């Protein structure tokens, strides 16, 4: 179906979330809706799916104007929504989850006719290549498959327009590829797709047309066949963005971090790090690439003292730290930007100021003999907020109220608020938009140029190639190859990430 949104405006207290936005999507095409966090993408889609009412503007489907009073009305008109956070009952099986709310019934008592539902679901999944076991319990399914169940749910309700909100945010690269296959088979049969994302690569790969939103307005449109990542990024942010951080050649000095023959077990006591040798020198960035779950997490935890090691050696600045506590290691001048900032790096219900001193509160000037100096805390936190351009109403705002990018800036500001000898950053830009990524990368390079040794762990190839002076690829608990940044390409790193052996080493 042909979809058109005309001059949609929506105001929330204090913000104009959508300001006369007009977009249109043709039948069987993919419209990529690109924008930073807070650009108004989700508001627009909530209007389309009947959750919000627009203050003004029209929704036109196949030439007919619609007013959606509630989500049910939108579903009747053929609009299906796949939310970023899935809405599935974990203890249901796939058939029950998909049919819920639209169950076929038989008999006078309206008994749920599972057989009919199951048959339709199997038909739909074969037709669109959505490989799902209809009898599997939702809770036993990996995230990628759960997403397919969500898509099935929409198709089951005869949706011809499918809205996918940040669908790849929770997926592995593999699962993302599979999702793109599904999208192609959906459009081939005439389904119209609106694909919301802030990832440039994805929108270029899968969309037929791109609309960029910025601050509640349409910032421009682009043709994916001719548009470049750089153009899209600039349009999104509204200025010239460095997609690849500008940095001079590394100037490696003394070895700061040295890991020798390290073995570490994971929570299931399996060997997750299985004989890793690694050196990071002052003034260089070493990036560890690899598919999630190949021992990177455990390696980092062992280095920062959060996980006991099985055997091997770790030295930081010449000190043996195999059995040191996180506090002792941090006091050596080691900054740690954890992988999951919401869980490990921040305390959501503490203020920005309190989070700013989370691992330095015991040092002067923040405290003396166990008594906090709140003036010093507030003053330094305010300075940190200014220096790192953290967008927050106040330093007393709770961390949970900040956007992901600003939360990460709080973590980075805190970690770099004291002199750093070694910085370890795990997935430092996961889930962040282009502007924030640029910012974090710059700060890491700045630390490098200031003489710190930097170790970055990332599953994003673009990131690894952009910032790494040397790139180590981790596979199955080992470093399977180390490349110089200049010789690294998507292809040769990708091969190593898949487990191909690498004979030469640039280390």
């Amino acid at each position, binding site marked *: 179906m042909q979809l058109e949104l005309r001059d949609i405006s929506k105001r929330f207290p204090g913000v104009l979330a959508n300001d006369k936005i007009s977009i249109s999507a043709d039948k069987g095409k993919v419209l990529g809706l690109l924008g930073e966090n807070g650009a108004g993408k989700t508001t627009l889609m909530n209007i389309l799916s009947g959750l919000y009412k627009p203050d003004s503007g029209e929704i036109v489907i196949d030439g007919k104007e619609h007013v959606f009073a509630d989500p049910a009305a939108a579903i009747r008109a053929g609009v299906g929504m796949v939310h970023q956070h899935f809405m599935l009952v974990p203890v249901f099986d796939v058939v029950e989850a998909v049919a819920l709310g639209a169950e076929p019934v038989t008999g006078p008592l309206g008994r749920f006719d599972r057989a009919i539902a199951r048959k339709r679901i199997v038909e739909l999944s074969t037709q669109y290549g959505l490989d799902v076991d209809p009898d599997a319990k939702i809770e036993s399914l990996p995230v990628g498959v759960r997403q397919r169940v969500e898509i099935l749910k929409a198709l089951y309700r005869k949706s011809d327009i499918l809205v996918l909100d940040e669908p790849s945010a929770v997926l592995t690269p593999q699962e993302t590829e599979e999702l793109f296959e599904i999208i192609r088979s959906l459009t081939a049969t005439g389904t119209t797709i609106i694909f919301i994302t802030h990832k440039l690569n994805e929108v270029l790969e899968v969309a037929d047309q791109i609309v960029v939103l910025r601050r509640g307005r349409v910032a421009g449109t682009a043709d994916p066949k001719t548009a470049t990542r750089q153009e899209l990024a600039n349009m999104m942010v509204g200025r010239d963005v460095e997609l690849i951080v500008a940095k001079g050649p590394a100037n490696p000095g003394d070895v700061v971090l040295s890991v020798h023959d390290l073995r570490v077990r994971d929570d299931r006591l399996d060997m997750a790090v299985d004989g890793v040798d690694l050196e990071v020198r002052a003034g260089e960035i070493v990036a560890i690439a690899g598919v999630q779950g190949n021992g990177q997490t455990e390696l980092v935890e062992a280095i*920062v003292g*959060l996980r006991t090691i099985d055997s091997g050696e770790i030295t930081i600045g010449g000190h043996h730290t195999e059995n040191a*506590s*996180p*506090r002792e*290691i*941090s006091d050596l001048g080691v900054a*740690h930007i*954890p992988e999951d900032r919401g*869980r*490990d*790096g*921040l*305390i*959501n*219900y*503490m203020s920005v100021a*309190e989070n700013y*001193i*989370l*691992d330095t*509160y*015991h040092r002067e000037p923040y*405290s003396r003999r*166990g*008594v*906090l100096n*709140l003036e010093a805390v507030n003053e330094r936190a305010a300075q940190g907020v200014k220096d790192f351009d953290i967008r927050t109403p106040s330093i007393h705002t*709770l961390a949970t*109220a900040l956007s992901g990018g600003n939360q990460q800036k709080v973590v980075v500001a805190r970690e770099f608020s004291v002199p750093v000898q070694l910085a370890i950053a795990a997935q430092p830009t996961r889930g962040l938009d282009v502007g924030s990524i640029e910012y974090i990368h710059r700060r890491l390079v700045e630390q490098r140029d200031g003489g710190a040794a930097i170790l970055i762990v990332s599953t994003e190839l673009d990131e690894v190639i952009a910032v790494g002076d040397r790139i180590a690829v981790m596979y199955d608990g080992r470093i399977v190859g180390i490349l110089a940044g200049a010789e690294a390409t998507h292809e040769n790193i990708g091969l190593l990430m898949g487990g191909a052996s690498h004979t030469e080493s640039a280390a």
Partner: protein
Amino acid sequence: MNRLRDLGRRALVPALSVITAFIFGAVVIVLTDLENLARLPTDPVGAILGALGGVARGYGAMLSGAFGDPARVVTALGSGNPRDIAAAIRPITETLVGATPLIFAGLAIAISFRAGMFNIGGDGQLMIGALGATITVLALSGQAPPLLILLAGLAVGALSGGMWGFIPGFLKARTGAHEVITTIMLNYVAVQVVFFALRSTFLRAPGSTSPVSRNLTPITDVPLLITLPGIRLDLGFIVALVMAAIVSWLLFRTTLGFELRAAGFNLTAARYAGMSAGGSMILAMALSGGLLGLGGSFMVLGTVGQLTLDLSGGIGFTAIALALLASLRPSGVVLAALLFGALTTGGKLMGIQSGIPFDLLSFIMALVIMFVAAPGLIRSIWRVPVSKPAPEVAATTQPTGTV
């Protein structure tokens, strides 16, 4: 100005909860006023006025029972007769006497909850503290000046309660044993320990067949704030207020409090930041038990004067509700404890004067807690716009991990 507004916002839901509970209480008074209900068909105006009069009399009695009658206080002060003055101010001093152990207990629960530890063992910690104080005082009887005996009794009481709190904290930190289970179970153990101790001739009141200790007042007594006949209000109340200030300072102005709160909100992030999460748990529980022990000691050494098996009377549980009503803030704990103290003291007079049973007070207190626990309900009744979820609520609802 900003701080004042914040304060208002924080106090809004608890205050509305109290008001709403009293309105519901009034409805119950009216509905159980059978006399006036029976009159309704024949004399509707009289019945309604009569019912409302009943509510006014009941709540009026509660107020004067809790705070005294101002006119009477003035007359009594004018007459200068100590007996009259004592009788006139007794309601308010009894309210403060009732609030004192609740302040200690509420502060104790607030500390443990702030650190993510659900201390359900307040009763046990209070009893063990009171036992420690009683044994100390009896052992030192006649061997030291009364003041020294008093201080020793309070110190040992606080330490004993602290030790009783330390046990579940230590078990959680070392083995992951959940503190809800261990603290509840230790309540039973504590009661049996006290029961056993009260069987000894050393402790038991001579000639008594029930499990109560000797009277401690002749040996040592917490100094009274007002020396008038029949007034029990003593220094324990002032110490409780000082403790509230200390706890507030500890939680919000020291690195220790920072660690406790961080561990309470997010154990993994606290570990990542280099804090000792297990240490925070143990410390929070020991401090919590210590405050409860101190509260129990002030009871046996002051207002109650002896150790009895029903000394705690569920204070450890009331304190949980109270701490939640106070959003785990020490200043809020003091206010909530005064409210509970006033309700309990005033409820007795209401029962005597207006015939409305004391149980109505339990009903109102339960409603207060229920409304505080369901802020959404209060917000929708009073149409209060939704603001950000309070951190305190999150602290008490988020699951805590183990070390």
